[in-house]
């Protein structure tokens, strides 16, 4: 994979941080070892919760790390959604109608498959080739969307940004033939989406603008410090709430590897720790083949010290 050095725009709304562009999600995961959590409904698999879709929701610790490392910038998303000018809206409507017409023509002449292939970008072609090579026996790509089985959504998406194809509203032309209407996922495809006056390069600037507050106290600073400390050691991190901790610590991408640790953040070296917590963490960790990490944050020295806990194996 080629490295991409462009800072990733993190969309901020209501103090929550989202990634909407799949390319950005890929860079975050492959280059920066940050996973976030998918929070959206997959349009073609909308009755289950195992596989979710965009947006990717970032933990506040991930956001702070990304911005401090200059990998990302913060975008005040409500402000970036400007109202389209009349020409912009007109252009969009024309393209939408054009797309609908083209689709109907394509349908009529039964060459939709060829058209889809023709309109594929080079990138899409390459990806498709890779997919074919990966598994010859594997059927074609993700399953198609309702109503239009002759075209696979993956191909169409890849084609979308270049052809700028748009859906139609029921109002204008009296088309009676069915055609697909597309709802855009990310706003970056909209011409009037403008981040130039809504972008912040530092956490402090975003805090001053009132769109982002994390970290605002010792507890949040400790979490950011520990998260960064573990990340800098090369680990992947995920939320640990289901294991009674703050983070799950993975030796590699969670897609392929089990987590080794459940980590808890301790705000200071002198913060009280009850032996019962050590027993509870140690017991749970042993039952799940994980060690427990106590991560102590020193707010004066800005460093983290670690203690690993596991059952002794006797007694």
């Amino acid at each position, binding site marked *: 994979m080629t490295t991409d050095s462009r800072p990733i725009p993190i969309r901020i709304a*209501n103090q*929550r941080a*989202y990634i909407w562009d*799949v390319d950005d*999600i*890929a860079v975050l995961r492959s280059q920066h070892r940050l*996973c976030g*959590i998918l*929070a*959206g*409904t*997959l*349009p073609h698999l909308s*009755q*289950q*919760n195992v*596989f979710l*879709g*965009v*947006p990717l*929701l970032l933990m*506040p610790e991930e956001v702070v790390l990304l911005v401090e490392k200059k990998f990302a910038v913060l975008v005040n*998303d409500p402000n970036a959604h400007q109202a*389209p000018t009349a020409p912009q*809206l007109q252009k*969009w409507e024309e393209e939408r109608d054009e797309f609908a017409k083209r689709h109907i023509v394509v349908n009529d002449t039964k060459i939709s498959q060829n058209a889809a292939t023709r309109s594929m970008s080079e990138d899409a072609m390459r990806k498709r080739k890779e*997919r074919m090579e990966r598994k010859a026996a594997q*059927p074609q790509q*993700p*399953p198609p*969307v*309702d109503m*239009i*089985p002759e075209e696979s*959504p993956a191909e169409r998406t890849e084609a*979308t940004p270049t052809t700028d194809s748009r859906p139609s*509203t*029921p109002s204008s032309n009296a088309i009676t033939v*069915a*055609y697909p209407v*597309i*709802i*855009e*996922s990310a*706003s970056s*495809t909209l011409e*009037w989406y403008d981040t130039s006056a809504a972008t912040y390069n530092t956490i402090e600037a975003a805090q001053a603008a009132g769109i982002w507050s994390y970290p605002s106290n010792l507890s949040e600073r400790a979490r950011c410090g520990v998260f960064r400390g573990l990340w800098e050691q090369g680990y992947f991190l*995920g*939320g640990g*709430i*289901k294991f009674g901790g703050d983070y*799950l610590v993975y*030796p*590699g991408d969670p*897609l*392929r*590897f*089990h*987590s080794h640790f459940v980590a808890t953040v301790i705000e200071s070296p002198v913060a009280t720790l009850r032996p019962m917590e050590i027993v509870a963490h140690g017991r749970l960790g042993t039952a*799940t083949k994980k060690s427990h990490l106590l991560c102590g944050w020193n707010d004066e020295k800005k460093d983290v010290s670690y203690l690993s806990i596991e059952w002794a194996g006797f007694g």
Partner: protein
Amino acid sequence: MDDALELPNAPPKPVQGDEPDENSSGDEDSGADWTKLSSLNINRPIIPRRGEKEFEPAPGGGSGLQIHVLDRARSAMFDALRATRSTSSKAMSYAVWYPSIARAHVTLSRGIHFTSMGHSVPRKEENEEKTTKRLELLPEEAIYMIERGALFCTKAGGAPMSAQQAFSEMLGTEDMTLEKYQVYSYLKRLGYVVTRATPPSPFYPVTPPSSTSSTPLRHQSLFSRFTFHLTKLFSRFNWWRPLCINPWLRQHMSYEFIYKSLRFIPSGHNAPLHVKHTSASPYKIFYHLYKPSTPFKKTSPPPPDFSVVVVDARVTQMPTLRELDDLFGELPELPPPLSRQRHPQQGPQPARNQLPPAPPTPTTLWSWISSWVFKEPETPSPLPRRPNPFAALKAGKRIVVIAAVDAGNISFFRFGQGGFEDWPMM
């Protein structure tokens, strides 16, 4: 098949997060194997099992095979994420989002979603004098429909809204937060009907009072308060001689009666807590939940199957006893669960033969008082069929589901009010 686990079942197992796969791989929501997604049939999606994971990458960033398998998993995931929201022009619904009133006005409604979503509101159109009724969606309903690719939403000027814009502009309005929306969409994806517990406007349909248990509940709590004071009065009266044995009634010689008489500290949830109310609790019932099997009428919703509280786990403490008590105070009392056996055996049940059968309402206090005050023998019930007390205790008299959301991770917890005082074991 994992999706069987995700489907709502009839027994009170309302919601569950990731399967409780305790030993190893249940730890991450990204634990599903995306590479198996591509071979799915669209009409009847089968969720593949989790893929096998490894302990750690080989030294130096992973072996060639590991890198290959990882790349394959990642690109399967990214491909699936690139899927377009696309629906046939003949199935798409349309709406206009009005930020000032936090509602999406549905201008063209299609599909089955609207049997359980949206409500009718009389609004005055800009140029018109009279009000007309129109169909409107709450923010969560609009976002969910957009996410499913079933609703094309525009701003008032005709500008189309992306899913991203819906998240940015609709969340944060009408008490809707990201956490609450995530719980909403999670439950909707499982097929539940989800409505607001507190109507956001007078036009929002609520459960008609006649058919609900909320009115009897209010009566009942008044009633129990009354009986509680009576109890106190009489217990003060008999403080030093709690055991008044009436020589004429032999029933009063039973152990049950003696034990009851000796208890002068009230037990059970009808006794008020001596803990102050906290100022603003985050623990409020936010959603009403209906199983797909429950007949649901949008204009007159039935009593909910479940009540759901949503909290942000990052900033919310565990609920206090007072907070839980306040939650349960709003909830109707549930009948004890029916025993599974058609003909429950009488023999091996715990010895509690003289108690009245299954108290459908908590009459214990009342019967206790009446046995004291009026010295009347309790009428022994002729019908011995009663639910298994352990099932009733496990189910609880009142149930509330608390969804704790930690940066996108939803955990559901079910809190039940245990009616131990109703089921003495002797």
